[in-house]
């Protein structure tokens, strides 16, 4: 349950019920009325009728405290502002999902209120081995609890020795990928070489932070081979806070399971075959515990062989298809 302190403007009183008006900067909908107090549910019908508030159409009416019977008056109740605690999942979901959702056919406010990062479902993991790295993702594309496709691509190539996986909202992952490819191609034209993984991670971080107050809802996992074939992995949150790791990084709805699985299965300095096996097992066992990700896995292993150029192996895993 979430607790939120919201400043509201009290606009009227019907008996012992207070009617308040949410400031428009906080929520996307312009008319968000809050009714609280004793017998609030009975009065909400009156609030909802256009006559009681100047004929404006009521979009949503949040009723708080309808079941409780406060006998004492709420403090600071005068004409101006009231501070109170609101426990409301629907309110929080409207705040955390700042897109206009007025169409009834979209039914985003389903029974299971999900965060925006869990809308499509994803699982990503990257691991470091001896002169090699592996990056793996699940293959499910869903719309909340409905599966739309089982062959969705989340790991993208930037250049031969650098890959990025994007978890979170699929549309933002696709948009981010297009922006990053654009920036990298410009870099290639100017510098006449590929970007180093560390530089690329800084680029991703900067791009994400540019949208600090309206972010892309995706968490990238970056894996690449740097100078001297040194593997590099890093992850960041949706605002660009980098987390460099020496062993493994995870992201997505199954991240908690992935942390546990990777921590127990990981060993430093693994050879490519063993690294491939480890990352596959970690991914499959974690997504089996997460209903929003799975439907197989995709593993990409890159290792710098001694005499030949960098070798890349891509494999599709068949796990529990549910």
């Amino acid at each position, binding site marked *: 349950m979430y607790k939120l302190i919201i400043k509201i403007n009290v606009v009227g009183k019907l008996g012992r019920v207070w009617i308040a008006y949410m400031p428009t900067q906080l929520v996307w909908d312009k008319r968000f009325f809050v009714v609280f107090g004793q017998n609030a549910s009975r009065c909400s019908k009156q609030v909802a009728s256009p006559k009681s508030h100047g004929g404006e159409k009521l979009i949503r009416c949040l009723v708080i405290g309808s079941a409780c019977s406060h006998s004492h008056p709420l403090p600071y109740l005068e004409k101006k502002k009231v501070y109170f605690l609101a426990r409301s999942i629907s309110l929080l979901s409207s705040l955390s999902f700042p897109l206009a959702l007025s169409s009834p*056919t979209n039914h985003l406010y389903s029974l299971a209120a999900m965060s925006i990062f869990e809308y499509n479902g994803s699982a990503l993991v990257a691991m470091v081995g001896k002169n090699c790295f592996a990056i793996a993702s699940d293959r499910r594309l869903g719309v909340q609890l409905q599966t*739309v*496709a089982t062959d*969705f691509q989340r790991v993208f190539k930037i250049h031969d020795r650098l890959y990025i996986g994007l978890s979170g909202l699929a*549309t933002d992952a*696709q*948009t981010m990928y297009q922006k990053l490819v654009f920036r990298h191609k410009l870099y290639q034209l100017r510098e006449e070489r590929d970007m180093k993984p560390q530089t690329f991670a800084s680029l991703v971080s900067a791009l994400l932070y540019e949208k600090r107050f309206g972010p892309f809802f995706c968490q990238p996992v970056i894996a690449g081979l740097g100078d001297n074939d040194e593997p590099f992995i890093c992850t960041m949150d949706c605002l660009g806070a980098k987390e460099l790791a020496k062993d493994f990084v995870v992201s997505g709805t199954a991240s908690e399971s992935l942390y546990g699985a990777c921590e127990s299965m990981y060993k430093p300095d693994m050879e490519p075959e063993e690294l491939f096996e480890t990352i596959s097992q970690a991914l499959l066992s974690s997504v089996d515990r997460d209903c929003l990700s799975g439907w197989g896995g995709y593993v990409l292993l890159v290792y710098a062989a001694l005499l030949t150029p960098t070798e890349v192996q891509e494999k599709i895993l068949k796990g529990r298809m549910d």
Partner: protein
Amino acid sequence: MECVFGLVGKGFAIVAADTSAVNSILVHKSNEDKVMVLDSHKLLGASGEPGDRVQFTEYIQKNVHLYQFRNGIPLTTAATANFTRGELATALRKNPYSVNILLAGYDKGVGPSMYYIDYIATMHKIEKGAFGYGSYFCLSMMDRLYHPDMSIEEAIELIDKCIIEIRTRLVVAPPNFVIKIVDEDGAREYAWRESIKSPDVSMA
């Protein structure tokens, strides 16, 4: 509620949509065509807010035509899908369109293809897909009965089974459906499945 669904067969792609225009409890009309023919070899089935749907699909259609006029060759299905996705993505954080789209097309050399484009601009190439409350029934029917490279008869049989399922099991089932097909010979209307005929409007 609005249902749009489609599948890809051997050398063709089919998009079917319901044809009722509804405003809360009132049915305005039962013969609203929601599958737009973009150009000679492309279909765009859309569902969502009525105003957004008509506005956005017409916008896409005119831009597709403009490309053909300017460049002399038509856009490929993949390019159209990416363009549509780009428009939805650009508008997403300003004034979002609430339109879900199934884009089907036939390209010489590539064959038929279908793209699922969500209202938040999630794009994916699919073989079978559905939007709306009908998707709960259609997707399961198609998972069970679809196989790659179906013939036209088999595909229409599957579409009909989906329509029957929607009519039987959905409480506010739309009565009429339109089925359109796109193949080598072009995009065209294939059939209507009507259970309630709209009365003919007498011309004064």
